[in-house]
């Protein structure tokens, strides 16, 4: 039997306590003051046999109780239950984490990393088990523990080596934190007795993300070994795409140039290269001191598609190329159902058509349809907003509702009492009567619900003043007749001004007046355009593609149910199965999604990867990671600790202490009972004792 906390056995010395107390109790039991002891001899009383037995029984119980308690606290366990040599679970569990991020492409790094990995494999004993994970921004399993155990023992190491040989550094960013956490979870999966180890082979660059490691509850007995590999040449400069401004020269792309702290080079050139080209003719030179960054305007892009913006004169080339997708503004179509003339300045249409301006990012097209015409198609992905200015025919209603249900916004303006039928049909409620409100001079907007996403952009003191907008006329309705409607704004006479009736995933906004001058000053107010844009933004866009992505991160493609699409990229053609809209771009480059309108987007190396200076050790120390010790003494301590951990696990499994505590409780009960019995019946015990003498 072994003990986890043998020092507690010293508590067994407390057995002396009851023995002493039993002795003391005899001496101090009763003191009788007597006149003279001259006739008495010092004659210790002879304890009769019977009382002696009973006291000893009590004493024995008390001693046993203390002994059992001491034994329980020392947490005993049987080590013989585990034969470390034969039990495969007693071996080490090792997770090898291999960094395959883009920064590992630096010269010499990958070779060194592979050597380190091989060294780690050599250190394994047959009892050990191994899992190999690779990580960039995502963590992937190259070999899992179950795969390792499935293999026959002689095949394990060769298989591991083979899988190591098959991989090479990719283009993703590195999220070291996630990778270590995944490895720790893997180690924790099954209850394993014995040491656990995570071996991380990485370049430990500054850009490695360590989020999530702080304060993590590491599995017991886990050790982390960091094997950092260093590149042959220090220093690195990288390129990062800056967002284009909405206005300005479309051809001059701003880029940020970052030079790492350990860099020796400060002079770089920036130019456009075609694939295969080594030197640029139109390159500009940029001066960036080590450890600093500069935002510069790239030289004008030459005509043609295949150009890449390239940084020259840098030691490591993995992050020196920027792929820039040609800018395509997002098309947006806004439909207006109304019977108004385009140049009628007294009509709503006139103001609506002028509300949206064309930007480099968005091409808004306002389409007007007569309200009484045939129902319009609203199925294109760029159909974003529908505004109803006049009463529509009943066959329109279903399409409008469908449009809203798929997550779009519909604005219904109650320009007149005649709109009541349209409102009732769209809301699918009982009849909602509309009456012309009696307005005294003008009405103002009050009680605006700024918590609603539509009005949330105005929720700031400098934007929230709507009192400058006067309303001459408006219609009044009872919001209680529209179940589920939320009043977003009211007129100062208490009538609702703007209501939101959710339909499916979208919204039906009901404005109880028009914005034309006859009804109000709304169209002329500064709030009008932001309000319309807010409505437009509330509608879901159907997965518009951004222009720039980072390699290794998932890309959300526009949803196209039931259609297989192809994606052309540097990796060749990729089939996107129907229903799937997530794509992992492994390589940087330009990708084109083949659709009715092909969409091109660029994938570049994450700018974090450019931060290649070694990670400050302080930041690692601060994370309090369970690093494995390196020195001999520390290793010995670690070995002891490993043994302790094994012991702890064994003890936890066996839980002998619980039984000991149960025994102790029984002893306490027995002692209490016996003590009580002896106390209650002193006469019956002492009388025969007296007679015996």
């Amino acid at each position, binding site marked *: 039997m072994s003990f986890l906390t043998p020092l507690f056995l010293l508590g067994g010395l407390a057995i002396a306590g009851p023995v002493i107390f039993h002795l003391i109790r005899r001496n101090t039991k009763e003191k009788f003051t007597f006149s003279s002891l001259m006739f008495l001899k010092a004659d210790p009383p002879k304890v009769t046999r019977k009382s002696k037995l009973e006291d000893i029984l009590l004493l024995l119980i008390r001693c046993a109780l203390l002994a059992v308690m001491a034994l329980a606290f020392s947490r005993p366990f049987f080590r013989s239950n585990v034969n470390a040599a034969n039990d495969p679970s007693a071996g080490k569990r090792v997770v090898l984490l291999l960094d395959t991020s883009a920064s590992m492409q630096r010269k010499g790094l990958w070779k060194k990393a592979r050597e380190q990995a091989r060294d780690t494999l050599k250190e394994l004993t047959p009892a050990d088990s191994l899992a190999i994970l690779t990580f960039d921004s995502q963590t992937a399993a190259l070999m899992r523990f179950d795969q390792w155990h499935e293999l026959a023992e002689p095949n394990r190491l060769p298989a591991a080596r083979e899988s190591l040989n098959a991989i090479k550094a990719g283009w993703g960013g590195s999220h070291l934190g996630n990778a270590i956490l995944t490895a720790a979870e893997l180690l924790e999966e099954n209850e394993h007795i014995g040491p656990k180890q995570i071996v991380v082979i990485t370049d430990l660059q500054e850009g490695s993300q360590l989020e999530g490691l702080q304060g993590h509850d590491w599995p017991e007995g886990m050790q982390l070994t960091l094997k950092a590999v260093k590149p042959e040449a220090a220093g690195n400069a990288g390129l990062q795409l800056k967002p284009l401004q909405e206005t300005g020269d479309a051809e001059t792309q701003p880029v940020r140039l970052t030079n790492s702290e350990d860099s020796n080079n400060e002079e770089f050139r920036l130019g456009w290269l075609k694939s295969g080209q080594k030197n640029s003719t139109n390159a500009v030179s940029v001066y960036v001191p080590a450890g600093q960054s500069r935002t510069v305007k790239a030289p004008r892009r030459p005509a043609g598609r295949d150009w890449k913006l390239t940084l020259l004169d840098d030691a490591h080339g993995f992050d020196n190329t920027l792929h820039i997708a040609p800018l395509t503004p997002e098309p947006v179509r806004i439909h207006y159902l109304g019977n108004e003339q385009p140049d009628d300045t007294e009509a709503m249409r006139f103001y609506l058509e002028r509300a949206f301006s064309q930007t480099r990012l968005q091409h808004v097209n306002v389409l007007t349809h007569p309200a009484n015409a045939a129902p319009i198609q609203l199925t294109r992905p760029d159909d974003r907003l529908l505004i109803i200015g006049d009463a529509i025919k009943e066959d329109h209603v279903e399409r409008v509702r469908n449009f809203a249900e798929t997550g779009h916004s519909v604005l219904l303006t109650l320009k007149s009492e005649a709109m009541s039928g349209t409102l009732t049909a769209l809301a699918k409620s009982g009849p909602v009567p509309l009456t012309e409100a009696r307005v005294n001079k003008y009405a103002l907007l009050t009680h605006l619900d700024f918590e609603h996403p539509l009005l949330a952009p105005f929720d700031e003191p400098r934007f929230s003043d709507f009192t400058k907008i006067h309303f001459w006329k408006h219609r009044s309705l009872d919001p209680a007749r529209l179940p589920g409607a939320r009043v977003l704004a009211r007129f100062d006479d208490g009538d609702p001004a703007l209501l939101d009736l959710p339909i499916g995933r979208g919204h039906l906004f009901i404005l109880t007046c028009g914005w034309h001058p006859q009804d109000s000053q709304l169209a002329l107010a500064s709030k009008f355009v932001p309000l319309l844009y807010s409505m437009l933004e509330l509608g879901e866009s159907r997965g518009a593609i951004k222009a720039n992505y980072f390699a290794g991160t998932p890309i959300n493609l526009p949803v196209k149910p039931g259609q297989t699409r192809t994606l052309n990229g540097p990796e060749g053609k990729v089939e996107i199965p129907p229903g799937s809209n997530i794509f992992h771009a492994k390589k940087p480059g330009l990708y084109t999604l083949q659709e009715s309108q092909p969409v091109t987007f660029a994938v570049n190396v994450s700018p974090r990867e450019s931060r290649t200076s070694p990670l400050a050790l302080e930041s690692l120390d601060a994370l309090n990671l369970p690093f494995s010790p390196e020195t001999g003494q520390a290793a010995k301590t670690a070995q002891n600790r490993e043994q302790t951990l094994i012991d702890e696990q064994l003890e936890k499994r066996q839980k002998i202490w619980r039984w000991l505590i149960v025994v102790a409780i029984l002893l306490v009960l027995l002692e209490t009972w016996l003590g009580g019995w002896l106390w209650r019946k002193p006469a019956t015990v*002492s009388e025969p004792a007296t007679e015996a003498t």
Partner: protein
Amino acid sequence: MPETPPSTARDGFIDTRTLMQIRSLELRARIVVQGFWNGIHRSPYHGFSVEFSEYRQYVPGDDPRYVDWRVYARSDRYYIKKFEDETNLRCHLLVDQSRSMTFGSGDWTKAEYAHTLAATLAYFLFQQGDAVGLLSFDEGIRDYLPARNRPGHLRQLMLSLEKPAAGRSTSIAKPLQRIVELVHKRGLMVLISDLLAPVDQLEEKLARLTATGHDVAVFRILDPREIDFDFEDALLFHDVESEKDLFIDPAAAKRNYLKRFTEHGDAARAICQKLGADYLPVTLDQPLDQVLSDYLRQRQRRGKNIQRHTNP
């Protein structure tokens, strides 16, 4: 003096428990003495005072002052005229004040009992017109009041007796020696003690007292538990005098104790008998008037010099 005597115990004696509840020592004594007012004692002296006793023929060495010259004139013979002494008896109470006297298994201690007994005797004798003195002692002499029969002397005596017993050990030899030195006139010596001290010196000192003509009475005050040693459980016995502790199992030690205790008592009794002294063992539960009457009866029975001389 109360109109009615306190409740009496069986045999017509005063209940000791009731008596000991009376705080005033003098009152206690008065109650006990009430009904005992019988002049039993006679002085061993034939003094010269108003009350004529007898004539005796002059022998050389007699004080010529006491020669009755009238008788000489009538009969031409020298006669010495003897008178009854006015102070009948000179009694000295020797009261043990040692700490062993503070023991008492009941409601009162041996010291309280002894004081009451001494006070009773003192009062009794004082009322008879006897002179009473007091010598209280422990390992040495604590208080000494010479025997007198003055008004206020009894009060002083009572005050002295009311002092608590504070002495450490009992040494009988020393006070006996001292009283021999102090008192030259013959009289009654009443030793009130538990005699819980070695008896080897007792004989010698008592012998000196009796030799000087003193009438000696020894009241041995004992607690019933000291006599019976009726303890059941093993106890840690604490000696009040020596402050020693002894852990004793009474069941085992009783026989031995009783043997040694009886031997000690017997030795004391034997010494007293040998010297012609009265030996009266008294237990704390004994009524005081009984003790007193026992004592007086014993004296009468022994027919010593106390027999009353009839006037011629």
